[in-house]
């Protein structure tokens, strides 16, 4: 089926200091087409759509909308030309009602009563039930997304951009959303759909442009491809074989057996029968797309989520019922993914943050008082060893850029001499050089005899550091396999959508 062309993107390049987010990206979207922009985290998808929506200006390249040159300077201009966007993190006001929220996002809203009637009409037409008089604060994540979608639809867009729309939705809400999107598409509204969830794209999208490290690596029709093929395209074949380190593996340092815990996170994923062991000197890499139990696994290992004592063992000591401080004392340190608020107290200084997790293991208290001199020395050691760019150790954590803070936090955990280290997303948002440095220190710690668990969505990273490899999928962990000799085919199968193992049997 050929469609008239709506948006053409040609040779778009956008560089940020130290990183090229998009390099010579070209693709086109037809009217009424659902077009997927597919890629791993950091592949440049979000930057691309921000340029289409006028939030970011490209360095070079052109865009044309219906054959007319298109260079939106700000979102309002894009909206006027018929481009609307639903954000990954919603821009809503909790204490205002639905109609008021919609009105705030419109250029020229009609009177409230008329608007309420319109919201009701549109929400019924597209099967997105929504009461205009309800407070947004009382709505679920899915309903909040409907508010954003309806805000877009009321402006009659020609192109609707959706940035990872399903990351906060329940499966039922995803179904409803997809139905709406298909209906919109049949009415001639094009949709640019950003995701890294392969099964979703297969079921929804007409065309897909696959980005890797800012470049278009392939364009394909998702229905004709298997999830495995697309995962391969997304990850890339040109992977260098990771350098194997020689070193005798020691006894088991971390043992987890049949660990099942409910998720404390709204719309989180419960862990279901997770079992693995990590030996001294071994790095276990855990892959999987976000939201498949990664956060929960970290909480269960760090001690923030407790379980039966013998489900988690550190150096053969049962610790399942112990909290984070006791587990640190027993030899396990953990670095969560969210830097501002979970891994660090954003408004406290680096010295204070250093004390918060390292106080126990580094002996930074004397007679019940904080040993500030010792803590400062430790913070300065981290800053020196990990090349943290900061005016000094007394700067608030919030003031550091994401990458710099990540270096500091990695250093804080890795320099405590722990026998078990658990890290979620060690190099998320960190520039390439710093990422290499963090990976090197992970390998160094393992070389010194620590057992390391690295949870990451970056496959290249896992292949570089991990000795064994497993995938977390809907709260279940596949059986860890040695990374050595693992082919991209096999990884694609392990990761391939929600039913990876079934596909694997079928293909085999």
């Amino acid at each position, binding site marked *: 089926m050929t469609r008239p062309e709506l948006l053409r993107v040609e040779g778009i390049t956008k560089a940020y200091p130290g990183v090229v987010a998009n390099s010579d990206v070209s693709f086109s979207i037809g009217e009424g087409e659902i077009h997927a922009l597919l890629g791993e985290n950091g592949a440049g998808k979000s930057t691309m759509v921000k340029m289409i929506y006028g939030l970011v200006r490209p360095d070079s390249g052109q865009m044309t909308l219906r054959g007319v040159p298109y260079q939106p300077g*700000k979102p309002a201009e894009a909206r006027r030309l018929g481009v609307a966007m639903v954000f990954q993190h919603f*821009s*809503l*006001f909790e*204490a*205002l009602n639905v109609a008021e929220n919609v009105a705030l996002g419109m250029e020229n809203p009609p009177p409230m009563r008329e608007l309420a009637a319109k919201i009701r009409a549109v929400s019924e037409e597209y099967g997105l039930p929504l009461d205009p008089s309800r407070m947004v604060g009382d709505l679920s994540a899915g309903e909040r997304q409907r508010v954003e979608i309806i805000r877009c639809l009321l402006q009659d867009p020609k192109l609707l951009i959706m940035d990872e729309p399903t990351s906060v939705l329940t499966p039922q809400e995803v179904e409803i959303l997809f139905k709406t999107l298909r209906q919109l598409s049949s009415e001639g509204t094009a949709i640019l759909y950003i995701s890294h969830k392969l099964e979703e794209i297969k079921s929804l999208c007409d065309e897909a442009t696959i980005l890797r490290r800012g470049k278009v690596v392939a364009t394909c029709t998702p229905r004709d491809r298997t999830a495995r093929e697309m995962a391969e395209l997304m990850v890339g074949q040109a992977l260098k074989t990771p350098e194997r380190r020689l070193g005798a593996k020691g006894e088991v340092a971390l043992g987890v057996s049949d660990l099942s815990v409910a998720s404390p996170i709204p719309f989180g994923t419960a862990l279901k029968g997770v079992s693995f062991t990590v030996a001294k000197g071994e790095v276990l890499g855990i892959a999987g797309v976000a939201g498949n139990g990664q956060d929960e696994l970290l909480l269960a290992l760090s001690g923030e989520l407790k379980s039966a004592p013998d489900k988690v063992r550190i150096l053969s000591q049962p610790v399942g019922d112990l909290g984070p401080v006791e587990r640190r004392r027993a030899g396990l340190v953990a670095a969560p993914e969210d830097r501002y608020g979970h891994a660090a107290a954003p408004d406290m200084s680096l010295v204070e943050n250093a004390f918060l997790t390292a106080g126990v293991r580094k002996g930074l208290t004397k007679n019940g008082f904080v040993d500030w001199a010792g803590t400062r020395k430790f913070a300065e050691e981290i800053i020196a060893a990990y090349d943290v760019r900061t005016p000094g150790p007394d700067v608030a954590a919030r003031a550091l850029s994401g990458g710099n803070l990540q270096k500091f936090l990695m250093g804080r955990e890795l320099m405590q001499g722990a026998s078990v280290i658990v890290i979620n997303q060690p190099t998320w948002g960190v520039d390439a050089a710093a990422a290499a440095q963090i990976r090197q220190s992970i390998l160094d710690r393992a070389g010194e005899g620590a057992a390391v668990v690295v949870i990451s969505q970056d496959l290249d990273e896992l292949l570089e550091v991990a000795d064994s490899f497993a995938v977390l999928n809907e709260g279940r962990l596949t059986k860890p396999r040695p990374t050595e000799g693992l082919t991209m085919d096999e990884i694609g199968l392990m990761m391939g959508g929600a039913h990876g193992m079934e596909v694997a049997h079928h293909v085999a």
Partner: protein
Amino acid sequence: MDFLGGINPVILIATLMASAVPILMAALGETVVERAGVLNLGVEGMMVIGALGGFIVAVETGSPVLGFIGGAAAGAALSLIFALLTQVFLANQVATGLALTLFGLGVSSLGGQGYNGIKPPATGQLLPDALADLPVVGPIVFGHDWMVYFSIAMTAVLWWVLKSTRIGLIIRAVGESHEAAHALGYKVNRIRLMCIAFGGAMAGMGGAYVSLVRVPQWVDGITAGAGWIALAIVVFASWRPWRVLIGAYLFGGITVLQLNLQVAGSGIPVEYLSMAPYLITILVLVIMSAGRRGKANGAPAALGQNFHASR
């Protein structure tokens, strides 16, 4: 129809309406400011500077109406210092507000030198005596000066603006989540600056009412803590204009009642009567905040937080 030893309820109600005007005006202004997410604790300072500005203009021009406009201008001018410090230089709002009160008290004391003992031109009753002389409804409904009616009208106008107009919606949105408002393209700090100036003008007019009508002369520190009561009433009223009116009248009523009790020679020592309005304010605030927890009290979510557009 006397009760409580010689206190006339009709006169009591009529007087409390007038005595509530300063705190009502200041509290209405502060309601708008806080709805936009700004906590300006300098209400007392803006009132006292408005009291002085209004007094000087009224005395020099001989026109009480120009006096009230002068009071509003003085209050707004002082509030712009607060706006500059908190919205442009992103200073802490609580500290800046407290400083503004101290600054206002000091400046008014300095500027008021030479105005002691002068009588300002009188602000008369608005409606003809024929109406004001009616029994019961006369003094309560018709017997007031124009500021009493103006303050009630402002309550209605602000209620309508905040509830039903686009500008009110934008003010509330800015006070709820400045990040979301910014993402949608609203100029957060500019909107807040205008709300702060409006709050300053309202507080200034309230202050002018004290020096031109209630007292009426110039004395140092003439507002005597009315600004703090206004701040408490905003919380008491859960940031809603009509409730602000109720709160102001309640407080005005207690103030008038204790004065009347003093005059009537009740057995309670004068000191206890004088502190009664403040004690009751504290009591009401404690009861209000104890009864409701969390978000239910209606405080704007971004209250007191500075906003800086980092993108």
